[in-house]
């Protein structure tokens, strides 16, 4: 499975449905990144879901404007990025895989 083609994927999670989250997690390992956005920002509110994310990878992000509109009273639990940073992130990874 040589490392030559092994580039990390950016998974984009916009849902808190258990099944969607489980599918997203099942396809990830520590080389991948995860961006929470849309209603996916609420994953931060679920301790078991957040633990599951952290166990898979340390590269966790949340889309800042979506966090601000959904959880304005809370500081993000992971690195907050804006759209410009999301664009940059998508250019430093392999495939971007969306889970809505």
């Amino acid at each position: 499975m040589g490392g030559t083609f092994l580039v990390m994927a950016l998974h984009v999670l916009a849902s808190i449905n258990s099944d969607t989250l489980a599918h997203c997690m099942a396809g990830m390992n520590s080389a991948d990144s995860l961006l929470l956005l849309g209603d996916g920002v609420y994953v931060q509110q679920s301790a078991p879901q957040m633990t599951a994310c952290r166990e898979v990878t340390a590269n966790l992000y949340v889309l800042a404007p979506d966090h601000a509109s959904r959880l304005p009273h809370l500081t993000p639990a992971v690195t907050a990025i804006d759209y410009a940073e999301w664009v940059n992130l998508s250019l430093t990874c392999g495939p971007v895989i969306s889970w809505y």
Partner: protein
Amino acid sequence: MAASFSLCIKAAPQTAGALHGLEFAKACIAQGHTITRLFFYGDGVYLGLKTLTLPQGEASISQQWQAFITTHSIDAVVCIAAALRRGVLDCTEAARQGLEFNLLREGFVLSGLGQWVAANSEADQAITFG
């Protein structure tokens, strides 16, 4: 370094995905990147429907997409098969059914799935919203 993006919007007008796609596309252009093509698929084809009508004070994501597309002259393709199934007809398709109107917003064109898969493989990065 400038890169090229192929973006697919599968999200319906009132959903987060439609906004994510638009803001991401704006950020691409703002950073000097290019958009190979926008492809509207699934419920995303409704973004090309010109009759969407929102109450006063609510922003029309469909109009915002149109403004973005025309301002930056971006190739915006609505999947023809998905559009017909959902009733989003351009002049030609309406005429085929004896109807004399056009439901497709200016700036959008109907075309096939090949436009999408080709753009995805040409571009530096392909992203789907929705």
